């Protein structure tokens, strides 16, 4: 039995942040009904990434919305609205990510919903919270990354701001929403009481940086300085970073510098016996290491470092990773099928429960694919 079986979720959200939350909840066993507007549906259906279209719609939509049902409704149309409200009456969870103010106009705000379903768990994601000068700003991943200070943590000193090349803000805010919703569902199971759970993209990406922001508060507000070269972390000393070798790249995490010097035959490193110097002098140390590691292959260095228990790894791309036995044994890729028989490959839920992977063969729904079924089963019945 999947842990969330019998949980019904009505999902008014689109794009990635909240839909990534309902994907996780679906994989954990919940039934997720996506309420989508007629004609376009979730905007993400048309948001192409790399021009890759799967069965007529974006590969991103297909990845985010598998294992869900689609109910077509125009929330501004009174008949449709009443139908969705009937669904909400029966639901355990309602989720949306409209900008502050919009949900009140639609008549799906928490105060209204609570009256028709007092035990509901109501989850919402905003860009920047519901108060303050940024509340009406678009909550988009790159923009929130840019405002949050995150872009100065990656890359090297002298390069410009370097965003994370993925929707890290969307995914983290979705993950936080799931945590809040599950905690609230537990409270509901124990007390019968509902809750409102709110997450903002800005707060989520600030939480992600809790280590470096706390450091900033304690180092007198010193500017974030990235290493001059071989960077992997602005606030960590040498050797932490990525190094070019004769035939690829090598990542080195923590390790005592003089010991590394002995192992690798890099004399210069023995000049740094003091651990404090590994941070203060990291640019010089990294330069010496980089020059040395460039003289031989990744395999050669790994064969010296791994037996000595130094934390190191080969940098891989997906082509390489996917052929490794260490990857294959995880069965991380699953095949899913849409109603029309179209099949595509995607990743599975990363959580294992009682030794079992949480997989699902259900592909993403066509717009309104389940409208009639849901009407009969949950609205008219």
């Amino acid at each position, binding site marked *: 039995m999947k842990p969330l079986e019998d949980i019904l979720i009505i999902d008014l959200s689109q794009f990635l942040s909240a839909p990534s939350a309902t994907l996780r909840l679906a994989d954990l066993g919940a039934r997720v009904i996506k309420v989508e507007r007629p004609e376009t549906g979730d905007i993400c259906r048309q948001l192409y990434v790399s021009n890759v279209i799967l069965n007529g719609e974006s590969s991103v939509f297909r990845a985010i919305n598998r294992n869900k049902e689609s109910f077509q409704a125009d929330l501004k149309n009174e008949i449709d609205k009443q139908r969705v409200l009937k669904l909400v009456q029966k639901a355990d969870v309602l989720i949306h990510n409209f900008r502050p103010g919009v949900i009140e106009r639609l008549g799906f705000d928490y105060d209204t919903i609570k009256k028709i379903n007092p035990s509901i768990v109501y989850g919402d994601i905003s860009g920047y919270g519901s108060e303050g000068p940024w509340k009406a700003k678009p909550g988009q991943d790159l923009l929130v990354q840019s405002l949050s200070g995150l*872009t100065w943590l990656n890359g090297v000193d002298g390069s410009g701001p370097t965003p994370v090349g993925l929707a890290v803000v969307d995914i*983290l805010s979705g993950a936080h929403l799931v945590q*809040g919703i599950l905690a609230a569902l537990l409270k509901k199971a124990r007390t019968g009481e509902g809750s409102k759970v709110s997450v903002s993209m800005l707060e989520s990406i600030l939480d992600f940086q809790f280590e470096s922001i706390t450091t900033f508060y304690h180092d007198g507000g010193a500017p974030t300085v990235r290493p001059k070269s071989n960077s992997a972390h602005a606030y960590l000393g040498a050797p932490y970073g990525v190094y070019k070798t004769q035939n690829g790249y090598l*990542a080195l995490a923590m390790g005592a510098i003089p010991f590394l010097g002995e192992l690798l035959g890099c004399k210069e490193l023995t000049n740094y016996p003091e651990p404090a110097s590994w941070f203060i002098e990291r640019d010089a140390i990294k330069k010496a290491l980089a020059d040395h590691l460039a003289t031989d292959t990744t395999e050669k260095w790994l064969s010296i470092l791994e037996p000595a228990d130094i934390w190191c790894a080969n940098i891989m791309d997906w082509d390489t990773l996917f052929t490794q036995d*260490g990857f294959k044994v995880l069965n991380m890729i699953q095949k899913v099928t849409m109603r029309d028989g179209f099949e595509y490959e995607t*990743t599975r839920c990363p959580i294992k*429960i009682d030794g079992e992977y949480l997989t699902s063969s259900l592909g993403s729904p066509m717009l309104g694919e389940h409208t009639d079924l849901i009407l009969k089963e949950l609205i008219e019945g």
Partner: protein
Amino acid sequence: MRPLEGVLVLEFAQFMAGPSAGLKLADLGARVIKIERPGSGEAGRGIALKNLFLDGSSLVFHTANRNKDSYAANLKDPEDLERVKKLIAQADVMTHNFRPGVMEKIGLDYKTVEAINPKMIYATVTGYGTEGPWAKKPGQDLLVQSMSGFANLSGDKDDDPVPVGAALSDIITGTHLAHGILASLLRREKTNKGALVEVSLLESTLDFQFEVITTYLNDGNQKPVRAKQGNAHAYLGAPYGVYKTKDSYISLAMGSLLTLGEVLKCDALAVYTDSDSWFTDRDEIMDILRSFLIDKTTVEWLAILEPAGIWCSDVYDYKKLLNHEAYKVLQMDQRLQLLSGEEVHTTRCPIRVNDERLFASKPAPRVGQHTEGIIKEFNL
């Protein structure tokens, strides 16, 4: 009442992934007791950013372990182990991130614990799962970023691989651990049965890339190519990226290039009428934008773009952001008093429940700070 009030969590986990999950559970109302070796405590106490320590433990440790208790026990000592087992009998959740085999040797593997407490949610973090050739490889954040393909997504085309400068794999894995634990607690309400929850850094970091891996799996395995300069997403077309202005930087998200050209009065963009070209001619288009945007300041550009509904923003560092009204209004930070009298100034939980912010009631503990009290309270 916080949603997880009444839930008791024993945290055997160290470093960041497991403890970051424990922190969320604590902030959501659970009582989290760290089980630490006497004296030095968990290994994360010694790992510091910028060599910063408070009251004998790293500032990072204080950040990830606020709102928790500490119980000191040597798990290799039979008497200590017996007491811990009595505590296990009364707990709801336990977490650890020992490498496969270690808990079996100690005698606190899932089977043994299940026999003591059949309702236990037993949750583990590994680097790469429990089977296969990597099962015993060290599971460390940077190594997993490097092995998972993720380091190839950030930075510009000709840059070396660019890892993210924060514990991304650890934190993502911690969120998944919390998901599995909470879902299992919910199932237990119905079935009265415990669960074994397993996550790994590698699987979680792959899940984090699920959109782009799905694209890769279905586009004939094309390698991701980062934009030449100002890259913000290997799979998104122009204008998505970061651009230098006269005085600093500006970020532009997705949107119609033609509309952008009109709003900016950048005529050179008008030829890109086919939206496919925004991806295929990305470097060329971004060059045009770069040489155009350098002529005005960020504030000047925002004044033109924002009213037209273009998705754009300034690029802030911590100093600018943390002093901004939009940050202050969030009340995102909190100050916690240590026993030493020192103060930890840190952030709070990002989740709000019933419109209330969740602040921590106490700082991270000293090693064994609560041992005696817990022995009495739980009759160990």
